[in-house]
């Protein structure tokens, strides 16, 4: 990234299309489309970003503004106070500061995962051994397409006695393929 200064999309700018490339970028204006950046992306409090397809992707994403759409980062995503995001977040490290608002799924692991347990969406249930329903089968790296839609699979995992169950995050459909593509870049 040496030699690339920080770019800035000013407050008065509206971009309908895609932004991609290398270097750090600060967005103060409006983007409808997609952003794919090999660098640090900062969406300031005046930023209004609508992701039309896929996910907003960068190495590190700091959100202070509003985003409609999924966000993916290879390093970290941070929602600062004032951030308003409707969409899923996926990154190895995710921070949501008090005052950062999110409506969506969060996943701090980028290992592939099969269907999330549908059981979770039901109202509080009394059965004590809910653990197996939540524990997904071991990650299958060759999964052709991640299946985030919670098809309720009664996973035949042995009831763990006392050991914390592994966390199996789910990915949006296609996200795994996108991540593989990104990794292979």
């Amino acid at each position, binding site marked *: 990234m040496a030699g690339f200064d920080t770019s800035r999309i000013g407050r008065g700018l509206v971009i309908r299309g895609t932004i991609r490339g290398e270097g750090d970028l600060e967005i103060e204006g*409006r983007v409808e489309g997609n952003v794919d950046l090999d660098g640090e992306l900062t969406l300031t409090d005046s930023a*209004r*970003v*609508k992701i*039309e397809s896929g996910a907003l992707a960068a190495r590190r994403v700091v959100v202070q503004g*509003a*985003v*409609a*759409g999924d966000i993916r980062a290879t390093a*970290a995503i*941070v929602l600062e106070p004032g951030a*308003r995001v*409707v*969409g*899923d977040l996926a990154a190895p*490290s*995710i*921070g*949501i*500061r*008090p*005052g*950062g*608002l*999110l*409506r*969506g*799924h*969060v*996943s*701090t*692991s980028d290992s592939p995962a099969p269907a*999330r347990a*549908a059981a*979770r*969406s*039901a*109202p*509080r*249930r*009394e059965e*004590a*051994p*809910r*653990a197996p329903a*939540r*524990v997904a089968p071991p990650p299958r790296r060759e999964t052709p397409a991640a299946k*985030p*839609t*919670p098809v309720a699979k009664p996973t035949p995992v042995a009831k763990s006695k*006392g050991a*914390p*169950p592994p*966390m*199996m*995050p*789910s990915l*949006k459909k296609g996200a795994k393929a996108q991540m593989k593509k990104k990794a292979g870049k």
Partner: protein
Amino acid sequence: MSRNFATNRAGGRTAVRGSDEANVLGATVRVRGRLLGDGDLRIEGDIEGEVRVRGSLDVSEGGNVRGNVTASAVTLSGSLTGDVDAEGAVLIRAGAKVAGDMKGSEIALEEGASYTGRIEADFELPDGLDDSRGDAKSRTGAKRR
């Protein structure tokens, strides 16, 4: 630090009494069954079952909970598999391992935490931004209660 509770090893209700004092389930305590409490509760042990306290719930670093949790405020430093329903703030600390949906007046996540699940804060997107790809609730197919 009072421990006025009955642990029912056969599974079933475990009542934690102690008014407004903080109650602690120590590191070696195991509960299989529902856990109810009036005051605050700190879990350092291993709980399998629903946890419902009127006060605040703190799952400490070594604590492990498998079941849904309801409290006025929740701080997770240990391990939780289950949904959280808090009136107030939910805080997932760095080092915690949490899987489940979070509901509360404010949900904060520290960088360094391992978390997977849904967060549903109540707010509107500004300036004509809308989630045109459908209701966020139905994005992953699971409709939030």
